[in-house]
């Protein structure tokens, strides 16, 4: 059940140019939130900008009753949000949307992140660590300064491989190219001990990256889930603005709502533009 609440800003920190972590005191949402879900955030109190902004849930601190958002300033709404200070209140609707599935503990998991895409994946990786699943994490960004949380993710017990488009850290190239090399090598090996429940890939990042990721996992026959972004109006499924073209059960073309049926979709069901 999602709620409309006034949350108190407990802290906001800039962790890189244009990138912020926002801590919100909101016990009900902290209690209910799952990885891959998002909040619809009213960034200001005036009529311009008018709409809320959908921001994925980055982390939850249930002991402190906090929900943490990690976002990049991309426009006027997020620019306004970055000005929020400790003690301010923010109107939130959430937790919203259909999040990531929970992998079984005997599933072999790969997580592929592009840029700010790490925001919701971090929450997933933390929950997975809590349930004893460790993943291979492919963390990509344009440049080294935009690679976030690799140390924390390693501390969760996951393996992390880095890539940058400009070669300033890790593999020189796209994160999907890095992931494809890994899968190609891996597919030559025979069965993986201790992973009897098959494979699973989770991805979040720019649209082009997710499209490429879907192609790769489709080619190798691995199931996967991707978290999509779309312009949203209501965030609750009423306005049908954030439609995403998907394949239905009888492979018919079907628009589904990113805010309700998504933002996480099985990669194979998305019809990529």
């Amino acid at each position, binding site marked *: *059940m*999602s*709620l*409309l609440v006034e949350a108190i800003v407990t802290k906001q920190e800039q962790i890189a140019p244009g990138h912020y972590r926002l801590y919100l005191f909101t016990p009900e949402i902290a209690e209910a939130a799952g990885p891959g879900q998002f909040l619809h955030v*009213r960034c200001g109190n005036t*009529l*311009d*900008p*008018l*709409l*809320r902004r959908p921001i994925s849930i980055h982390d939850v601190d249930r002991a402190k009753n906090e929900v943490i958002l990690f976002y990049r300033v991309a426009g006027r709404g997020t620019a306004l949000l970055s000005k929020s200070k400790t003690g301010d209140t923010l*109107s939130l*609707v959430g937790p919203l949307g259909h999040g990531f599935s929970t992998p079984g503990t005997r599933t072999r998991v790969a997580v592929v992140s592009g840029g700010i895409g790490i925001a919701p994946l971090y929450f997933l990786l933390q929950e997975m660590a809590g349930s004893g699943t460790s993943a291979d994490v492919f963390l990509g960004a344009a440049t080294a300064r935009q690679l976030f949380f690799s140390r924390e993710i390693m501390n969760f017990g996951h393996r992390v491989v880095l890539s940058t488009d400009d070669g300033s850290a890790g593999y020189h190239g796209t994160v999907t190219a890095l992931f494809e090399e890994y899968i190609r090598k891996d597919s030559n090996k025979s069965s993986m001990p201790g992973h009897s429940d098959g494979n699973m890939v989770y991805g979040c990042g720019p649209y082009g990256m997710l499209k490429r990721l879907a192609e790769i996992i489709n080619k190798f026959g691995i199931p996967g889930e991707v978290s999509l972004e*779309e*312009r*949203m*109006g*209501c*965030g*609750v*499924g*009423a*306005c*049908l*603005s*954030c*439609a*995403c*073209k998907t394949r239905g059960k009888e492979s018919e*073309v*079907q*628009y589904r709502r990113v805010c309700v049926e998504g933002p996480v979709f099985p990669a194979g069901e998305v019809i990529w533009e």
Partner: protein
Amino acid sequence: MGMSGATGQKNTGIRPNLAVNVGGILMKNPVTTASGTFGFGPEYAPYLDLNHLGAITVKGITLSPRNGNPTPRLAETPAGILNSIGLQNPGVERFITEVLPFLAGYDLPVIINIAGDTVGDYALLAEKLSCAPGVAGLEVNISCPNVKKGGMQFGSDPATAAEVTRAVKESTDLPVIVKLSPNVTSIVAVAEKVAEAGANALSMINTLLGLAIDIKKKRPVLGNILGGLSGPAVKPVALRAVWQVYQEVKLPIIGMGGIMTAEDAIEFILAGATAVAVGTANFVNPRATVEIIDGIERYLAGNKIKDISELTGLAHKHE
């Protein structure tokens, strides 16, 4: 302290009457939802008790299911939004079997917005919905700017608008509200013809045709290029339309266009609206409708107005 505390009497004033009759649709208060901004109702049920609404006006329904327009379908503009959803809906048959039963669980007049490609479509929709239980009225959408056929075409010409109205009236005994487009030379001329054709009420305004361009990509923002503008940016235009039509046409009006607060709603009522619809505001504040209802009640009580009907068109007396 005092007797009132002991007897539990908090308020000696009489609660103002908020109930209105919109062309035969009895609403317990003058607030409904603007079609397309409130889904079919269940989307907002987590945030408010739907029974508190005066009525619910649901997303536009067509004869066959529609997939809607390509994305992006939404662009934020100064104090407003442009949309080009394109009437995505499950079609009238699935609406009747899958959606109406949910709404039947509420004590709430349900107004169905209908849209067709042809005059015959509107008549058939009216016929089908008249047989379905739990429908309080029809809102005839002759003003959607986002579909190639039908929609706004029907609402742009007074004679065609009247033809659609007549066809719907002949196919139903339900109250018929005709939703007017602001994208016309004279909204009064359309309203007059629609009234002559037998409409029971008017709703206005639908969205204003608009455009937004992405200067980075050097192309229109919306997948469908043009869209309909709504939100606070359109409020003065909507108010003007209500004002002008109220002067010339003796039909109840559901006023809408950028209503965010009770104060906005009261402006529409003073301009001549019997009821109002809340649209884009729902996206910003899911509880906008019920907050507006409470605000209207407080305004009436504060101004010692016993009945909301006393307020309708009152601003014209000071012209």
